């Protein structure tokens, strides 16, 4: 099943994919082809999206990584689609119209990391309080101490 998808991805997009785990395939693609790849995967049975997971590699000088995790609930297989973003251009086209359940996941990734999903209808703060918009607390550069409330003794 995964071998088949692997060959199809190679034939359709010329993308190399590798085994991530048993039952899981990893596809690294450019962001301008992301929507096509995701659409292709959806039409091939990967119709249950799990999440959007962003990893901040800026301390290592590698920018950000956006991972889309999709599952095929009938054949019990996973695909992870990975997009690498440079630090100075944190934009990626949305897939929330292809997979509506991913819309809140993109929204969360935006408020926690500042990755802008172009075309997402609702990029507003969700879990954070309104006054914390733009703090991007899950970035590695976020400084906990700077935002800590001073304790009573130290005043």
């Amino acid at each position, binding site marked *: 099943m995964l071998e088949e998808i692997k060959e199809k991805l190679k034939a359709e997009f010329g993308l190399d994919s590798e085994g991530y785990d048993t*039952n*899981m395939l990893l596809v690294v693609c450019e962001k301008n082809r992301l929507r096509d790849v995701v659409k292709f995967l959806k039409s091939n049975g990967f119709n249950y999206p799990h999440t959007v*997971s962003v*990893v901040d590699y800026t301390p*290592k000088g590698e920018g950000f990584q956006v991972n889309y995790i999709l599952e095929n609930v009938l054949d019990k297989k996973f695909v992870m689609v990975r997009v690498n973003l440079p630090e100075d251009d944190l934009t990626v086209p949305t897939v929330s119209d292809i997979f509506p359940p991913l819309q809140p*996941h993109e929204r969360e990734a935006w408020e926690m990391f500042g990755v802008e999903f172009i075309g997402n209808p609702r990029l507003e703060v969700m879990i*954070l309080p309104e006054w914390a918009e733009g703090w991007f607390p899950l970035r590695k550069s976020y400084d906990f101490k700077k935002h800590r409330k001073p304790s009573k003794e130290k005043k």
Partner: protein
Amino acid sequence: MGNSISMAGYTFVVEEKKEISGEDLGLLQEKLLQLNWGVQHPASGPMRLKVWVDGDEVVKVDPDIGYVLRLLEKLVEYRTWINAIVNVERACFIDNFGTMTGYSIAAEKIAGVKVPKKADYVRTILCEGGRIVSHLIGLGSFIGVLGVHTPMQWALIAREKFLDAFEVYSGQRIATASIIPGGVRYEPTGKFIEKMVTAVDFLEKEFIPRYGEVFIDNPTLKLRSRGIGVVSREKAIDLGLAGPALRASGVASDMRKDYPYAAYGELDFRVVTKEEGDAYARYLVIWEELIESAKIIRQAIEGLPEGEWRTKFPVKVPPGEAYVNVEWARGCFGFHLVSDGGTGPYRLKMRAPSFANLWAMPEMMKNVKLADVPVIFASLYMCHGDIDR
């Protein structure tokens, strides 16, 4: 001042005028109102639903969450590999074993550590204990939102027995911190097994027959929850529902069966599915899973092997990453764990099933009656700690 509605603590915001065939039908039917369901509502928990109603009919629902945000994904980055379990288990403390198991399996995958067989069995016993504890609260609170609070009390009595077993095992009743990368933290003593058997005995011999007689085949409950919030099979996948809600729509997705972890591959159990996809089907899925879990615990106790219950887990883990799913009480919980070769996780993304269910809810609540909002909400079986993390 004389308005009884505002005195009861509700706020109405007039949203927009709506013409209804030129007739003056009074304030409630003339305008779209925004109603706040929560934060202090007894059934909502620490979250708010903004409900726009047209008379008695719900037009739109928008959840307002974030009241229990602890930023666990960030806190984990400041911990060592073993310490991180205290943050992971607090995703939702009711079933804390499932989340700890998932995190531990992910960490073991990156480190290449193989867990002893006994640890796998103890994990299975604890995970199923956690599932029972969580499902008992789920059953109780489902009828609780309909206004009957007796079942919750019955469920809590059965739950206490399991908490006693957890206490004997780890010293804690709720946040046990008992499953770590490399195995489980404590030896499963005879006393723990004894307590667990007592709890399962009570559940199977006292709770299940009595509760099943009164609150399962209950005509009033059926009247109230059948045909409410119906989701078809295709729609359930489209909406991205998770866990019992997905299985109640006929999709047999259960991580324990699909991608066996711990000792589930060696045990015999059934994936509960229902075809109806309404609130009552979701309630029945929780109920039947409870019965299945009791059977799994009995099998796991019977097959508990001898030997070590933990192995050494390295202080520094080589760079790598893993995505692991476990079937948690409320659905499949995903852990995307990244290591950069340090002494703790570099990044942990938790994919929470309640978060998925929550954002599927506004679609399910379109054009239902206002009185059905709590029924659908409770049938989706969500945990707030898990939504906000």
